[in-house]
């Protein structure tokens, strides 16, 4: 158990003060708009670059413009899983509730990003390579990643005791994290063995600078969006789970006071 008055020598800042869910709640409320608004602005900018400024691709025509949502979603699906693994490691290592709550808050958004990546990938594949589903290494691994996310979410729902659910999901996330590279490697291996298949999935179109910048701006937008959503979701989780705690009056006051 961390002493809440622990202070670091150099800055006299008490970081562990925010490790209590009740203390973190107002911070989450304050931070969320600082990510939500940039997310919207960046998305608008990214889509403008992607649809107005970026040129037509020589090989794929206008269909390539799907990458402006497909690639950022795929990147985020991996990044969020890494973040989940990070919070899970903290939750198991330090036994802090808030770390587990952050992992809990990230899972649905990660699943959503994975779904979007798969959906847009399929629709990009059809005009480009002739098939909705190409069984290539990346898409297949993305599908398995979706199962990993769903597994964590399902395990959370299935276990009634929240603290047991915290630790079980944390362990599952870490086991999954170790396995993701192994799974990707094995699927890639399988793919090279069966290269005889009619579909040969080439890499993304050769990147004009504008295409690349459009992708990066959208990726940044997706990142800000994910953080904003996770912060709002963690607020719900804190309220749902800390309702029975003795700090209830404090929480009730904050739930009332802190404007949406």
């Amino acid at each position, binding site marked *: 158990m961390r002493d809440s008055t622990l202070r670091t020598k150099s800055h006299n800042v008490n970081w562990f003060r925010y490790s209590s869910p009740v203390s973190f709640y107002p911070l989450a409320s304050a931070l969320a708009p600082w990510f939500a608004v940039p997310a919207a602005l960046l998305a608008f900018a990214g889509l403008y670059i992607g649809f107005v400024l970026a040129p037509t691709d020589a090989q794929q025509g206008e269909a390539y413009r799907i990458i402006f949502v497909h690639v950022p979603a795929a990147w985020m699906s991996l990044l969020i899983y890494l973040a989940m693994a990070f919070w899970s490691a903290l939750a198991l290592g330090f036994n802090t509730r808030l770390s587990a709550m952050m992992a809990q808050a990230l899972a649905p958004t990660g699943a959503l990003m994975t779904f979007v990546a798969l959906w847009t990938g399929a629709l990009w594949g059809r005009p480009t390579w002739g098939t909705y589903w190409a069984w290539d290494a990346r898409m297949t691994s993305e599908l398995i990643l979706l199962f990993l996310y769903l*597994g964590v979410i399902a395990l959370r729902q299935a276990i009634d005791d929240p603290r047991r659910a915290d630790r079980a999901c944390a362990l599952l996330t870490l086991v999954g994290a170790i396995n993701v590279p192994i799974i990707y490697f*094995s699927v890639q291996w399988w793919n090279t063995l069966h290269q005889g298949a009619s579909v040969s999935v080439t890499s993304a179109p050769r990147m004009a600078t504008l295409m690349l910048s459009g992708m990066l701006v959208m990726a940044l937008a997706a990142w800000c969006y994910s953080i904003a959503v996770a912060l709002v979701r963690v607020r719900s989780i804190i309220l749902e789970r800390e309702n029975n705690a003795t700090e209830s009056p404090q929480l009730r006051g904050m739930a009332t006071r802190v404007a949406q």
Partner: protein
Amino acid sequence: MKRLPAILPILATQGTARDFAAWAGIGWALQRDLGLALRSRMELAVHLSFYVIVVSLFPLAATPDRGLLAAMAPAVLWVAALLASLLSLPRLFAADLLDGTLEQIALSPYPLAALVSGKIAAHWLTTGLPIVLLAPLLALQYELDSEAITVLSAGLLLGTPILSLLGAIGAALTLGVRGAGSLVALLILPLYVPVLIFGAGAVDAMRVGLGAAANLSLLGAGLLIAIVGAPFAAAAAVRIALD
């Protein structure tokens, strides 16, 4: 139920005696679980029958065309092994949880990972090994040639322990949870994918002419990693479930 030898826990806290206790723990758990399993031979027979039935279903769903059967044989025999492994996982911990033995095991001074290893070994001996022994016979149903059958069996021999080891983590995580059966499938099948790919891939690689050595080596490496890592993860999961 045979009790843990009383003298060992006293020694278990000291240095080298701890290693000794670990091995003793593995041996004790293995012996106990084997004994319990062999007493309920009917259940083991049922698991094996499931494997046979599933394997026999696929040709009925497709045409009994020789080429097609031989082509899909590795896939069918492997996927059925995965499913059979999933079905038998509850046996690992559920019964012990119900009668309170699991808590006693967790409280004993023996390293929990060692005791879990013993249980997993017993699980594999009673569910995985029979599949390894039966698969060549079933492969004859699919008109696989003897070289392919050898590679298939070698793959299953290396792979089925991995299934038990990884499965134990899933079984421990979902201990006593409602809907545990299907939930374990959702949790563990993604982790099984590399085993499936390398196991079935070994036969395909051999048929194409690339040789099965690479796939089988990767399976072997995976087995070593799983033997070293999975018992600790499963033990941690058991503690999470019991606390």
